[in-house]
Each structure stands twice: as C-alpha cells, then as structure tokens.
C-alpha cells in the first residue's frame, strides 16, 4: 500500500549530490556502492584466477563474501540506528545476537528424543518462523530491559550496561545449571559449554518450502519449489558444470542472495525510520537531549524505541548469521564481534544509512574476509608450505637475509594479524577521516524535500539578501 510513493522520493536530495572516494567522483551514492561492490568482486575473481584457484573454491568464496557483506552491512545499519542516529552507545551487540539465535534454537529445535541423536537437549519443536519471531522479540526485550534503567542515567551508563549484559548472556549460555533441565515436560536447556546443535530445518530450505505453499496448492505436491525447482532444476543443472557435490555451493549462493534481500529490507526500514519526523527527533536527541525535551519531545520514549528496534534487528542478524552453522557455542559470542561491527560503522560514517551499507561491505571485503582469502590464495600458490611454529623460528632466519619463514609465519597467523590491521585502520580513520572513509554524508531527516515551497516569493537560497 505504501508503494504508491514516488520513486524519486530520495533521489531529489542527498543521492543527487556527487560523492567522491579517493579522487574518483561518482554521480550518487547508489552508483558508488555498485561500483565498489563490482570492483571488490572483480578483485576477488582476478586474484583467484591469476593464481589458478580452483573454480569451485572461487565460486564458493564469492558466495561467502556476499554472505559477509550482507551481514556486516545489516549490522552496521542496526548499530547506526542506535549510535549514528540516537547517540546510544551499545557495546554489547553480540549479546543481542546470541539471544536471538539461542531463543530461536530453543523454540525450533525438535522435541527431545525426536531430533538428532547427538543432541543432549531438545526444543519446543515449533516451526522455524515462530522460532525466528521469538528470537527477534527476545533480543528486543533484552534491549528494553537494558535500556529502561540505563537511559534514565547518564549516557555512558548504557555502554557499561550493554557490555556487562553481553558477557552475562555469554556466561549464562556457558552455565552448567542452565545447560539442561525439564520445563513443562520438555527437555530444554542452553547446552552449557558444548553449545546447541541446531537440528531444526535448514533455514534456506524452510524459507523455500514456505514460499512454496501457493505452488503446493496448485501442483498438489508438498514442497514443490524445494524438491522440483531448487533441487530438481537448479542444483542438478549446476551439477552439469561442477561435478561433485554442487548443493553446498548452490546453497551458499542462494542463502547469500536471501541475505541480500533481507539487507534490502533493512535498508528500506531504516531509511524510512531515519528520514522522517521520528528520525529527526532521534537526531535531535543525539545532538542535545535537553533541548529536544524542552521542545516537547518525550526523549526517553524515543530512545527506548530506537534502542529496542536496533536490538531486535541485531537478534535477527544473529539468527541469520549463526542459524545456518549447524551448531552454536557460547564462546563464539565474544566482544570481538561487537568490535567488528563498530569498525564497519566507523568506516562508513556513523549517522548515514548508505554509509553504513558501504562500511559493512568494505569491512567484510577487505578487513574480514580479505585477509583470510589472501591467506588461502597464498597458501595455494605456495603449495601449502609448512610455516614455522614459533615467532623466534620465524625471525631468526631474517638475520641471514631469509625472509621466507617470517613471511610464512605472518600468513599463517593471519587471523591474529587481522585484528592488528583493524586496529590500525581504526586509528588512522579516527585521525584522518572522523566522518568515515567515504567522508561526511548528508541524510536530511525528513520524509519530504525541504525546498522552499513554490508559489511563495521565490527567493534564491543562495545567501542573497531578503526583501525586507
């Protein structure tokens, strides 16, 4: 029903403005994002092709890259609502993600004894859609509980509450007491340190089966879209080109595509939230809460809404991220993930939705997946060499001008190095480009263009004198 709005709703404003990135000027943000993504994919492909990476691995890499881009872009968008718009400092993002995926698991895992035999605890056995809804609501509720006391206090208390909460969530997930128990006849639990086996329907399959309902009615075959179209035509069709097990590659791609769609949904939702009177009040709170209050806005209510919506979205991201991994363990949800998302937002520039998407994409492509890919590529090229196992073994040969061991050691420790790289990027950004790598982006918080209404005396807004 809302599709009736003009397509050029946003085009008239910020998107019209030229943007430049490292000296290259783009006509608008959309083009820039597109060019950025294409360049990234090209870079990945070329690097892989030049080095002779097997096609299957290369394709898989691109699917994964898309997965990460979508996830980090969504995460940056959700954090942007809280921090970029409202100035709420959430450093417990990962706790809301964990809440989302764990609650989904409890709701949708099969009842004890009916699912995977390896699972120590069962779930409620409800459909995945119910589980996802439950997970999102639970994350939102946790956000509400965190916000309620903290928002009444000074701004920095929220930071303390959120980081504490995310660690409390992790310790609760680790706890032996909560790991297993019987509730109302169900054997449920958080699984303790072993985590939970996510033995519910694969989310991709569940989605396609859900979409299949109208087709099922017509064809009279249950799961038509899944069995006939997805498996029957697409997967089998692809298997002509890649022998072996093509389903996992196709799955990766299909799921990444689903995530891109969800990202689109996030973007529309947050764009509308931001470019509206609601978003305007959020921005005003970020700038000066007392003034906003003095102008008649119930600032606490706005802050709570913004925070809860952000947390619920983080819960959903948690489900989309970890729900397809087969199992979850508590120690996945360390503050490191929160740190990643903050970097993505800072790269893109807090306060801008387009910036958040680009920040997420850049982070995923170059800081998160990039180094791992590079490691992969280098190791393939060098034929899986064995790297020295300690730093001293790596450094000692440098004295005799042999830097190969050191190089191999570096590559081998890419995951650790990655964090250092992120830290460096962060520091440089803070100094050189505090508004984000892509510079300051204007996103005017209103749902309509703010040009002077025509029909009035048409004074140019060029700073000229007024006629009075």
């Amino acid at each position: 029903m809302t599709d009736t709005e003009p397509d050029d709703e946003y085009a008239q404003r910020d998107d019209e403005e030229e943007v430049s990135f490292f000296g290259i000027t783009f006509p608008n943000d959309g083009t820039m994002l597109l060019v950025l993504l294409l360049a990234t994919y090209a870079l990945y492909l070329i690097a892989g092709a030049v080095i002779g990476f097997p096609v299957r691995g290369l394709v898989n890499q691109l699917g994964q890259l898309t997965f990460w881009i979508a996830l980090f872009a969504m995460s940056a968008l959700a954090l942007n609502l809280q921090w970029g718009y409202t100035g709420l400092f959430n450093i417990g993002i990962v706790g809301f993600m964990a809440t989302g995926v764990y609650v989904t698991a409890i709701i949708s895992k099969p009842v004890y004894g009916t699912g995977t035999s390896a699972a120590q605890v069962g779930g409620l056995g409800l459909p995945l859609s119910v589980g996802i809804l439950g997970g999102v609501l639970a994350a939102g509720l946790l956000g509400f509980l965190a916000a309620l006391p903290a928002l009444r206090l000074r701004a920095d208390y929220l930071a303390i509450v959120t980081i504490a909460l995310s660690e409390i969530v992790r310790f609760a997930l680790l706890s032996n007491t909560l790991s297993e128990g019987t509730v109302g006849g169900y054997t449920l639990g958080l699984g303790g340190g072993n985590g939970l086996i996510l033995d519910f329907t694969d989310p991709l399959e569940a989605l396609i089966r859900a979409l299949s309902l109208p087709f099922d009615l017509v064809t009279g075959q249950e799961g038509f879209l899944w069995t006939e179209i997805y498996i029957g035509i697409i997967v089998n069709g692809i298997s002509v080109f890649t022998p072996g097990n093509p389903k996992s590659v196709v799955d990766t791609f299909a799921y990444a595509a689903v995530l891109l769609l969800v990202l689109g949904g996030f973007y529309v939702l947050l764009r509308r939230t931001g470019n509206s009177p609601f978003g305007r009040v959020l921005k005003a709170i970020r700038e000066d809460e007392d003034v906003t209050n003095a102008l008649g806005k119930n600032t606490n209510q706005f802050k709570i809404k913004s925070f809860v919506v952000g947390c619920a979205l983080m819960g959903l991201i948690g489900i989309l991220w970890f729900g397809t991994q087969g199992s979850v363990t508590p120690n996945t949800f360390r503050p490191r993930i929160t740190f990643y998302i903050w970097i993505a937002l800072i790269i893109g520039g807090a306060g801008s939705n387009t910036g958040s998407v680009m920040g997420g994409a850049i982070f995923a492509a170059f800081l998160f997946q990039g180094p791992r890919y590079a490691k992969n590529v280098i190791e393939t090229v060098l034929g899986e060499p064995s790297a020295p196992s300690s730093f001293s073994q790596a450094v000692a040969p440098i004295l005799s001008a042999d830097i190969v061991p050191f190089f191999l050691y570096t590559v081998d420790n890419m995951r650790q190095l990655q964090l250092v790289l992120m830290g460096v990027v962060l520091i440089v950004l803070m100094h050189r480009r505090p508004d984000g790598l892509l510079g300051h982006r204007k996103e005017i918080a209103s749902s309509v263009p703010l040009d002077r209404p025509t029909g009035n005396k048409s004074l140019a807004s060029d700073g000229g004198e007024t006629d009075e």
Partner: protein
Amino acid sequence: MSEATGESRSEPAHVGDDEELTATRGTADVNEIPLRVRNLRKTFGGITAVDNAGFEVERGTMTGLIGPNGAGKSTTFNCITGVHTPDSGVVEFNGTDITGLEPYEVANRGLVRTFQIARELSEMTVLENMLVAPKNQRGEKLWRSVLAREDVNQQEYELVERAWETLDFFDIDHLAEEYAGNLSGGQRKLLELARALLTDPDMLLLDEPFAGVNPTLEERLLEHIHDLRDQGYTFLIVEHDMDLIMQNCSKVIVMHQGNILTEGTPDQVRNNEQVIEAYLGGEV
C-alpha cells in the same frame, strides 16, 4: 485541578482546568495571568538558589526578570520548565498546576523556554532544527513513518512551509540549508527563538536572549519579540542588562539572593531604594 491557597495576592482564587479553559476561555483571572509562581524554593546541597520566590506574568506582556549573577534567575526558569523539581512551591500555567512535570510536558502545554547559552542542534541543518519543534507530528510514531508515508508526507509539506515562513520572519531564510553549528552566536539565538515559536507556544521564557549578540542583531531580535508580543505571545525574559529590560518591558521583577526583591513598572523599580542598594550598587 489547581487550587489557590491562602497565600495568593489580591486576585481571587481561580477555577477551571485546562480543557475547560480552552473550551470556554476560562475565567478572567486565568485569562489574564498565564503564569503564576508561588513560594518557590530550590536548594542545591547547602546553597539555597531560590528561596520563597513568587510572581505572576500577565498575558500579552513582556515581563523582565533581572538580578545580579547568582540571584537564582536561571534556577527559577529551570523549576518552572521542569528541568529541576522545586523543593517546595507551586507553578501554575494557564490555571493548571505544572509543578514537577517533565520538561516535555511543560512544553507541550505551551510554555516553552530557550537556553542561556544558545543550544542549536549543530549537526542538523537550520531547517531540520526548525522541524523538530512542531508538536504532535504524525510521523513521530515509528510505525507511521515506516508504513504510512503518505499520511506523514502530507503533514510534512505543511510543516516545511511553516518553517520557511518563520525563517523568513526572522530573516534567516538564507541560512536554511546551513548546518546550525556553522551559525554565528547571534544567528543561533534567532534560530532558537524561531524554533521555539514552531512549537506553537502560549508563552516563551527567554534566558538571556541578548547575551553575546551584537548590537545590530540585538535590535532585530528585540523588534521580533515586540512583534510577537503584539501578536499575543507572552514573554518572560531574564536579562542582566538593566537598561535593555527597563526600556522594553512593561513589568520588571527583581531577584536577589533567591528572593523577589521587588516588582513593578520600570519606573517603580528604578526608584526602589532596595534595588538601588542591592543590585545597582548606588548607580543610576
């Protein structure tokens, strides 16, 4: 709702609550006296910032609140507008007891303040600053902003038009697309007043609106305030430039050490012995 206790001055106790007021224009008393402050007291630890202050502001007037630094003027403002909760005392606005309400509740009743140091929303444009102000915007409901854009847009167009008109009135329309943080001190004061007006107030409390404003802009600001008063707005203005208040206000309230020293017409106040001693140190 509100009750006049025996303490009140010669005026008769008024009746009626807010709704009744808007419906029937209330009693003559409420009509004449939008703001009434009684026995206001506020302490910070050991410091008594405001001590038993009471005064009234008549509708459609410019009333000045003066007093030396630290006299308790800003604290009085903060108690009236809900920033502080007074230790005791009553604040009535349009016949309703508003003591202890949250600032946003006070503002929504039509009593809107500006700050001693202009507080623009600096990373927002002048127009965005303006558009925050209007009350009860449809799009302030999140669901409506996401799902019912048509509805929201319709009102937004009206608000944008009003914002431009108000900027025109204050002659700052050429700054509309500028970030508020780039404005000069005086321009910020204009913006603050313009923004406050868009909330549709009955009465404006201005805390030192002329501080840090150059003489030309000060002249302009005064003209605007006089224009607005002629349109029916009520003003209570804190200022420590004595002459400015004397020349522009019909009534002057003098605070000293948390108390109301005296009040009256500029002439009465100018000739008051206590004022000359306590505040003017013998000059004038």
